[in-house]
């Protein structure tokens, strides 16, 4: 068994609309390993941080610095994050 020391940071993920209502908060904090945690990992973390979000996560995406990115994009740890799901303008 080896023991690794990994730097982790906590990142805020903004929530909006029905997802903010479900979670009853406007932002959730998740643990991220810079250079390692992907957006898919971050979405999973959100589900663990708040069970009420789990149903809507499969149809949600993460916005990184105000742009939708693919699930395999790796986080640096200093980005602006937001959960984009259950949208519906008009």
């Amino acid at each position, binding site marked *: 068994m080896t023991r690794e020391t990994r730097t982790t940071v906590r990142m805020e993920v903004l929530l*909006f609309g*029905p997802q903010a*209502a479900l979670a009853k908060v406007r932002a959730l904090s998740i643990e991220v390993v810079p250079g390692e945690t992907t957006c898919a990992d971050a979405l999973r973390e959100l589900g663990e941080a708040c069970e009420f979000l789990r149903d809507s996560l499969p149809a949600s995406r993460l*916005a990184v610095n*105000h742009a939708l990115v693919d699930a395999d994009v790796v986080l640096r740890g200093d980005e602006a994050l*937001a959960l984009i799901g259950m949208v*519906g*303008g*008009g």
Partner: protein
Amino acid sequence: MSAGISVRLVEGPVNGDVVDAPRGAGAALVFEGRVRPNEGGRLLEALGYEAYSPMTERQLEQLAAAVLEEHGLIGLHVDHSVGRVPIGAMSFRLVVHSAHRKSGLAAMDAFIDRMKRDVALWKVPVYADVSASHGVGKGAAGGG
């Protein structure tokens, strides 16, 4: 601006004049979305709209440019509310200028479908039968 693209997020209901049609636009289409008095059988008092600036505006601009190009439009102009919009008031207006009607109608349908599916805009019902909004903290709807 009469030709091209414009995108505006407006605090509260959408109002003001519709962009004039430029010369050469044989068809001007205006869609106005208003808050309906009920949702899922429950009486509404208002809808609360949230956006995530500047991402929302950028997405709307990109979508407008894509639809303009795909349908060969002359102009596409979007106004969308942020914040509280009471029932009966306008929350969304889309103006499409095109040479011909068919392309304008198809473009309007495509734009709205894609906006509802992809763009960072949210709506939260404010029901008439509860005194306060369902509430997740006050103010700062949409993070800017």
